[in-house]
């Protein structure tokens, strides 16, 4: 089998297929299970300064081609989260803490309050006031928050970007200037679903973020654009549910892939091995190394 191991954004992985932030990463047990099921690294659910219950339900609804969610950043606060990271590490892969805040100081407080193998800055959640994309769509904020966290921790720092902007590359360049070790693209697309019987928006928060197969082409274009303008690695996420999807992300320029919504498919946690297995067979068949595949679509200008 072709080797999939290597470094992604400053972290060594047996394979580049990771658990995405926000999916199952509430508990150490889930993180560990993803790791033992073959994930190359796992990203936690986003953690902030204060405990939050999240938005009222419905928090998730199935729509054409994917899922719409407005979980609302539920988390027990970083003060009650170290135990989960430590249990997650029992799975034998890197545990990256996804963190959020409303200011550089809050991000630094959370990052310095946790011992993790890396941090992923959530500058992209589309449905929480004062957090995520509300600050992450401004290049100035992305750069200053990245710099502040980077200056306060000694582990790799990744920045997860929002696609809900005119030019995602500008955000990626801001993260790079701030010292990020990688960017992760994309978070969900702003979206909404309405119940026609009652005329009410379905989500408790009215609006949310769309994930799943419907957004994959948007993610592929974002990864392609980012990889074309940044020096730092790009990690692709958005609608990956098969090895072909992962392959497409890599060919677009991704050094790593994250899987989220597809964990809800019938194969569940089995998706990590089916993606990495398919990827490995593909490389074997093509007689290529993983590194040669990264950004291969650039050969066709």
């Amino acid at each position, binding site marked *: 089998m072709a080797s999939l191991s290597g470094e992604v954004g400053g972290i060594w992985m047996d394979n580049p297929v990771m658990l995405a932030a926000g999916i*199952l990463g509430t508990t150490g047990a889930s993180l560990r299970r993803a790791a033992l099921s073959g994930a190359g690294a796992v990203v936690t659910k986003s953690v902030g300064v204060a405990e939050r219950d999240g938005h009222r339900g419905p928090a998730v609804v199935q729509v054409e081609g994917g899922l719409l969610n407005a979980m609302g950043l539920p988390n027990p606060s970083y003060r009650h989260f170290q135990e989960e990271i430590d249990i997650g590490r029992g799975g034998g892969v890197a545990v990256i803490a996804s963190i959020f805040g409303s200011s550089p100081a809050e991000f630094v407080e959370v990052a310095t309050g946790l011992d993790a193998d890396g941090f992923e800055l959530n500058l992209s959640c589309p449905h929480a006031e004062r957090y995520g994309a509300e600050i992450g769509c401004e290049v100035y904020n992305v750069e200053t928050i990245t710099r502040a966290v980077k200056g306060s921790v000694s582990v790799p720092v990744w920045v997860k970007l929002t696609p809900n902007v005119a030019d995602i590359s500008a955000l990626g360049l801001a993260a790079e200037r701030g010292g990020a070790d990688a960017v992760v693209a994309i978070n969900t697309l702003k979206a909404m679903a309405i119940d026609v019987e009652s005329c009410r928006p379905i989500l408790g928060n009215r609006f949310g973020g769309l994930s799943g197969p419907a957004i994959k082409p948007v993610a592929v274009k974002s990864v392609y654009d980012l990889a074309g303008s940044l020096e730092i690695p790009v990690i692709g996420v958005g609608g990956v549910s098969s090895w072909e999807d992962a392959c497409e992300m890599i060919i677009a320029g991704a050094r790593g892939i994250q899987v989220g919504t597809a964990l809800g498919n019938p194969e569940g946690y089995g998706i990590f091995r089916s993606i990495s297995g398919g990827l490995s067979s593909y490389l074997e068949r093509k007689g290529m190394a993983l590194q040669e595949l990264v950004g291969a679509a650039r050969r066709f200008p």
Partner: protein
Amino acid sequence: MRPKNAKIVEIVCETPSVRTLRFDIAFDPVPGQYLMVWIRGVDEIPMSISYKDGITVQQVGEATGAIFDLEVGDSLGLRGPLGNGFSLLGEEILLVGGGVGAAPLALLGEEAKERGMEVTTVLGVRCCDDLIFRERFEGAGELVITTDDGSMGICGRASAGLSCLDLQDFDQIYLCGPEPMMADVIGRCRGMEAKIQASIDRYFKCGLGICGSCSIDPEGIRPCVEGPVIRGDKLVGTEFGRYKRGPSGRKR
């Protein structure tokens, strides 16, 4: 799936704090499966199915309180049936229910009876006024009632009702009720845990196996899709009966 609109066609007051809602649409549930019930403008919560076209609700919080404000003609949004449900196995089965946990077991008992199985039920309630679905269980087979205050049947918890039975006689034991009761029953069934199926309650948000809020320590079982019915031997040594998590994910 998007929530399906379900109009309430009948409301039955089972006890002062328990009501059954029947809808204008029926599901084809495996007994033990659940619905995500959207009380519009309030919240969405999981409720087990008690009839092919109905749910039975105990008033415990804001969302269930809002359900109690609804009248015939009002509607809810329903996603489901979701989860695995109970699996009917063997010829002689025992149902053990506590309080409103009797709801999915009533549907199970009826289906077991239809299949020609021999059904014994032990129902534990606080007092005789809290007993629900007595006729449904009596129709399915033998019924043993226990009450905490001794106002009906055997005085004591549901487990007191088990002492008059030989648990070895049953091919399968089905549990639904308060977690301490179910953990207690599993504890009394050493060596027989694999023939117990327990319907467990956790904080379900997505109902799709992706948000992680219901995950069971230490293996990370997802009761919203791998449950809510989980085999007893898979619950031994877990958080079950010891703690659960709140909406933020914090243990409590």
